Every structure is written in structure tokens, then in C-alpha cells.
């Protein structure tokens, strides 16, 4: 995935689309947008950085997982097998991007009314007490669609494709705009690149 920070306006549509797609319960965000100030007055400005799971090639979360619940598919997507996760939260601490959450309980938004049928459908694979994270909308990918955050972005700041193919749109964008990854020095080799504004 490539995120063009010059185009990002910090609207959080990606975050909302992610919530809607995955039916995440209150307190659980698979995606967030960090706002921060850069530069000094009078040249100071507000900047935004959307942060999904980086689907690293050398994931810190996978390295520490004691039960083999976290795994990396051949196409590079990092997933959690909820039937294997015992909820030690070692991965939540180890992820340098804070992309993982411990699902302590599944709360609902509507109090005594309980969960909506939509939430129940979306949350059917969630397991209380396990680690949860962004899966690049793997269900949608298998149907040939784009991840919800990519499809939704109103300023078209996000691109999704095959990093192994040097001619894919994402590879070309990274090469032309000198895309960077977050915290490269940690050696996690993220698959999410940023084009800096």
C-alpha cells in the first residue's frame, strides 16, 4: 500500500470506512489518523498520517507470538488466527506501530439494545480475549475489490497493489516519489509506504 501524505487532508474517512467494513466494537481501531504539528511558527503546519497495519515483511508481532497464532501469508498479508491466540498481548506491545489491539470484551454502541444484526455479522469471527488488527480487508481482496480505506479515500491518497511487481502502480509511485516507510531502522520492513509532503 502507498499513502500519499501530500493528498491526505486528515478527514478520517478511511478510519470510518474501516470501522464500518469490519464492524469493530467501541475502543478498537484497526486504522487511525495521527495529527501532528511540524515546523515552527510562522511556518508551522498541521500534518496527518494515516496508520493501518504495516503488514511488515519481518513483523515484530510474528516474531514474539508464542503460539503461532500470528502468521504471514504468501502474498505478504499478516493475519491472526483467533483459534490459536491465547491473549498474552506480547504482540500488542511488540508492534512499533501500535497497530494491534487486545479485544478484552466486545462492547456494543447501543447499550441495552445490544448488538445490531450487522455488527453480529461483522463480528462473528472476533474472539474475546485475543489480539485483533487490520487484515487489509482480505475478504474484499479475495473478491477482487480494494481495501475499504483505499476505496473510500475522497482525496485519493491511497494506492493498493503488488509491491513484488516492479511495474505495478504502487512500485512506480514508490520509485518516482521516493516513498519511505515508518521506523525503517527497526528492520521490520513495512509494506505500507508513504509519499511525504
Amino acid at each position, binding site marked *: 500500500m502507498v499513502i500519499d501524505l501530500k493528498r491526505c487532508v486528515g478527514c478520517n474517512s478511511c478510519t470510518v470506512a474501516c470501522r464500518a467494513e469490519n464492524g469493530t466494537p467501541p475502543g478498537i481501531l484497526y486504522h487511525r489518523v*495521527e495529527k*501532528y504539528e511540524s515546523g515552527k511558527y510562522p511556518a508551522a503546519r498541521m500534518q496527518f*498520517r494515516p*496508520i493501518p497495519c504495516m503488514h511488515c515483511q519481518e513483523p*515484530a508481532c*510474528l*516474531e*514474539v*507470538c*508464542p*503460539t*503461532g*497464532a500470528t502468521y504471514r501469508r504468501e502474498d505478504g498479508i499478516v493475519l491472526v488466527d483467533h483459534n*490459536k*491466540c*491465547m*491473549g*498474552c*498481548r*506480547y504482540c*500488542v*506491545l*511488540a*508492534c*512499533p*506501530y*501500535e497497530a494491534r489491539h*487486545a*479485544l*478484552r470484551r466486545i462492547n456494543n454502541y447501543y447499550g441495552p439494545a445490544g448488538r445490531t444484526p450487522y455488527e453480529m455479522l461483522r463480528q462473528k469471527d472476533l*474472539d*474475546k*480475549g*485475543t*489480539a485483533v488488527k487490520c487484515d487489509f480487508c482480505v475478504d474484499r481482496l479475495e473478491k477482487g475489490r480494494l481495501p475499504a480505506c483505499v476505496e473510500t479515500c475522497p482525496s485519493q491518497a491511497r494506492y493498493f497493489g503488488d509491491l513484488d511487481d516492479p511495474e505495478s502502480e504502487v512500485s512506480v509511485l514508490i520509485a518516482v516519489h521516493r516513498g519511505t516507510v*515508518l*521506523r525503517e531502522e*527497526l528492520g521490520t520492513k513495512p509494506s505500507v509506504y508513504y509519499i511525504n509532503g
Partner: protein
Amino acid sequence: MVVNHPEGQKEWGWLVVLYVFLAGLGGGTFLFSFILSFVDTYSAAAQIGTLVGPLLVALGSVMLLFDLGSVTRAYRLFTTPATLLSSWMIRGAWILTGFIILGLAYALPAFSSFDWLPWEQTSGFGLGLGVAAAVLAIVVTVYPGLLLGVIKSIPLWNTSALPPLFFLSGLDTGLAALVLISLAFSPAVGVEGFHLLGAIDAGLIMLLLVALGAYIEIVRQAGVTAAASIRLLMTPLFISGVVVSGLLLPLAMFIYGIYLSDVQSVRLLDGIASLLILTGGLLLRLGIIRSGVRIVIR
């Protein structure tokens, strides 16, 4: 760049703090008890100590189980050996289990209700068990420092200065526990026996002061997040509970105790010093685990 409002991690709380404390304490207790069990003066107290050590580690392990989000899947720690290649948590699970089993197997035959066990503590096999458990005890004491130390996203933990700190503190608290056990056997231990324990403990405290000082100063210089963690760590509770009453005061008490010849006064002094050491050991781990600030991403 400054980390404006640093917050310690919230994922691991009291149960992990207690585990890290009990693992160091249990490992240290067993190690000292095993070594001193060969000295007549201490053999009765050490016999209890070799039993208490594995039991404390087992209690700590139970704390970890309670901390899990899905306890029913904890068995997976023993059914997925492939992750032994990468994860310190699963290595720890095997090390803890091995130590608890071997430690108990060594300690139990010394008690009359377990004389049905087909081996003696003093036999070659029994001693072998003891030596193996003692080696594992060292690993059990160091291991929490590795469990935390490999987490790259938390600079307060991600330093090679942490495992030696936990190791020395484990030894220090373990010896304190043995002093407390020895209080019940004071006629056998005698004033000289307490003097020797006090002298060893004073030496350990000095090493621990060096290790703690080096740890704090090195982490403080290791970047903005690390410096923010150290500011969070240095609370009045940490300085008074760990540094002053957990290390400096017991050091002074042990040294003063060496100059006393009345067994009752030495017992009292060493007993209080040991309780202070145990409290300091717990607060040290609480501080380090609570103050683990995550690196800023951008």
C-alpha cells in the same frame, strides 16, 4: 523533539509485575538455598528454601495464566514448538515448567511426607536434579529481563542493561527470602551465620546499586522516548521505596549488623532489612513495567 505527555504502556499490569517479581524471587531463593544447603549451619533453612523457590515461581506462573485473554488456549504454549525459534515467551514457558518440575523433584524427598519418592536428595540422581534446577534457576531469574528486553518498541526495556538488573535483583530478593526463612532456624544459623548472609547481601546490594545506576543513566541517554520513560520512572515512590528503603537502608542495616554480636538484635535487623529488600524488589519491577513508554512513530 520532546515527548510531551508520555504515558506508560497499559497492556501489562499488576499480574505481570507480580510474575516478574516472583520469578526473580523464586529463582534467587532456590539458587542460594541449593548452594547453602551444603553448609551445615544453613541446611535446615536451605531445605525449606529449595521448596519455597519453585513454589514461588509456580505462583508467578499462575499470575501469568490469569493475565491471559483466553486461558483455555494456554496449552498451545506446549503444542507449538516451532515458535521456540523466535519467541521468548514460549522459551520462558518451557524454562519455567522445567525449573518448577526439577526444583520440586529435588526439594521434595527431603520432607518425610514425600519419602515414597524413589530417589534421595543426596543421591547422585538427586544432586543431578538439584544442579539442573540451579542452572534453570539462573535462567528463570534472567528471563523476565529478556521477555521485556526484546521489545524494540519500548526503549526503557529494550536494553542489555535490563537482564543483569533483574538477575541481581532476583538474587538480592532471593537471599532476603532465605534470611527470612533462617529466622525460624536461628539456633542452628547462629549469629555468625546471620553475619555471613548479611555480608553476602551487602555485597549484592552494592552490585545492584551499580547495575541500577548504570541502567538509569544509559537509558536516559538513549533518545527522547527513553528519557521520557526515565522521568516517569523516577517517582518519589521509586526513589524512596526502591533506592532508599529497598537498597541503601538495608545495606546500612546489614553492615551495622555485622558489628553486633547479640543474635536477637542481628535477627531483628536482618529480618527488617530483608522485608525492605522484598518491597523494593517489587516496586522496582512495578516502576519498570508501568513506565514503559512506546516510541513515537513519526
